């Protein structure tokens, strides 16, 4: 930098050179990070939801897709599974979600009261449930078994008790359940 101070010695010029080299390297590191983030964004399944959808917590139970009879997992015509769930102080409905292994799963969830979190242990399923809005996320489970599904945002004094579960069953079991009920949860097994 061109300051008007003591005459520039050789040392000052050398210092500036090193400094500029480091600044260039820093810019390079940052650029690389951005490219990596963009690459991951384009090439990976987990992407933020594209559009904003609303749902009124006051009428969730009366009308629309989040009425009680419509909550749970359903087999869609294309073979994928749609799971609708709500969070409320201090539980999820359904409290235990059942899904088939190796199948594309889409979650649609919202909150009936305050902000809740929705996390499935050991997976990339991790969203906020904000009352007034619908959260969507897509995933696929590669192994069967039961996983925890805790609420991870403070939602009131019962927050520590808000643990749901998700049970991943084999495809045949799920198919069989789906012939008996339109909407499934663990209790239908």
């Amino acid at each position, binding site marked *: 930098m061109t300051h008007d101070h003591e005459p520039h010695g050789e040392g000052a010029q050398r210092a500036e050179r090193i400094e500029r080299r480091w600044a260039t390297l820093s810019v390079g590191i940052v650029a690389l990070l951005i490219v990596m983030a963009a690459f991951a964004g384009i090439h990976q399944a987990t992407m933020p939801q594209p559009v904003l959808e609303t749902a*009124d917590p006051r009428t969730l139970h009366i009308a629309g897709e989040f009425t009680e009879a419509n909550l749970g997992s359903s087999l869609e015509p294309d073979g994928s599974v749609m799971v609708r769930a709500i969070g409320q102080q201090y539980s999820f409905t359904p409290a235990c979600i059942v899904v088939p292994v190796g199948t594309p799963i889409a979650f649609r969830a919202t909150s009936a009261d305050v902000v809740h979190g929705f996390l499935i242990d050991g997976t990339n399923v991790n969203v906020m449930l904000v009352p007034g809005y619908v*959260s969507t996320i897509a995933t696929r489970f590669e192994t069967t078994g039961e996983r925890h599904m805790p609420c991870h945002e403070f939602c009131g*004094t019962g927050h520590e008790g808000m643990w749901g579960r998700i049970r991943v069953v084999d495809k045949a079991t799920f198919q069989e359940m789906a012939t008996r009920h339109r909407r499934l949860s663990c209790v239908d097994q």
Partner: protein
Amino acid sequence: MLTSKRLILAHFWLAFAAFAGALLLGEWQMFIRSPLHAWISNPEWYYRSVTGHGTAMAYVLPTLVAMGFGYFITEAALKRPLIGRAWAWVGFGLAVVGTITAVIPVALGAASVLYTFYPPLVGNPFYYIGVVLVVVGSWIWVALMSVNLYRWKKDNPGAAVPLAMFANVAGSYLWAWTSVGAAIELLFQILPVALGLRTTIDAGLARVFFSWTLHAIVYFWLMPTYIAYYTIVPRAIGGRLYSDSMGRLSFILFLVVAMPIGVHHLFMDPQVGGGFKFLHSVFTALVALPTLLTVFTICASVEIAARLRGGRGALGWIRALPWRNPMMLAIAFSFVMLGFGGAGGLINMSYQLDAVIHNTQWITGHFHLIFGGAIVIMYFAIAYDVWPHLTGRALECHGLIRAQLWTWFIGMMVLTFPWHWVGILGMPRRMAYYDYTDPALAPQANWVIMSVIGGAILVLSGILFLAVLIRGHRAPQIDPGPYRFSVAVHQPRRVPVALNSYGLWLSLMVGLTLVNYGFPILHLLTTPGTDVPAITVGAQK
């Protein structure tokens, strides 16, 4: 030329008193949620405590340190008395009244909403009013910083603003603009509901406004630390600042890019679209730049100190550093924690990696390492450095100071490494109780116990810290001489206008914020049906 010693001491003491109380609450929380303690019969106490701990640590401590240190820098760097000292006391008074106003409803359990106060949970209005008062007090400080610099510039036309003051004023502007987001949320969304004037609130919009504050507040927390890196450390360890311009550039970069990136806190939220999330993710990467520049400049400055002391070789100079000097220890520990914390931050930065750890205990571990570790350890170092100038008494117990810094460093490592790990194992945050008998949680039990031990070491360290400062008030009187900031290898007398003023940078800061936040906010404001009923905390359902 220090004439406002009582004012500055008052700020530091309020900050450290809040810190001491909150530190005990923090360790209590860690104990309660560990396997060492059975079910807490009333979990409400836990959330009350987290609200108190978070509010004191995130708002009261850093704000009061920045204000007190800011007044100190004004007098010590501009070498003249503070203009507007009476107003500064008014600001301090607001901070005291605000703290008390907020603490009472929290202590009574009427405002256990946590320091992030996410609506539609709403608590007692006095909690929010208290927080607003602290912030308004700090706005007085911002105005005073600006006035003092303006007057100095008028009296010293064309002169280079001392780096410490340049950074300090940049920090105050950053804070003024950052705090606007939460202020809008509190004044226009939450308080009308808390006071019973309205019954509904847009919870998604509130989270957007809060994110406006939540990210850059982190840079406000670290301003005093970075000012110490550049303008105290090189002098204290007997070296020179490698580059004055690089310092200015870093603070300017913080001003410009710290603000328009807060939506990275909403990566997992439904009310902001994917495009803006990506945009904020890109800007978040940029904010690594000033830190990378700082790491280089400070390491080079430290190397200069070592070479002046006769250090040789490519790495051999490290041995020549004054390792028994408290400031040397503090900067080394701070950099180690900044390194680990920064690596963790890169993970939080990307949407895809964030999905694994969002709102798990990884996050709490991460910010305790960066904030409680790298940043707060320099608050201690600042206090040690300025104390003799404020009290007129020697601070000679170097052994005790070294023990304090070592225990804080070790304690933070022992506290936060297991904390990160249980987060990766999937432990959700902010819970009063975990059932460790569950086979899925059992592997986390011993790690949480380690964190309890780390917290105990930190409590010990906190006690040492207060003991050193109190002893400093009783030590023999000395004349500490005039306060000196670091001198650069090539100390500029004049610098380019762009590195000596803020106009351009402030307009970029505001402009970028409006671009990056304008659309998401307008979109939510114009989307019908987003208001939801407020829910009073503590009320029975």
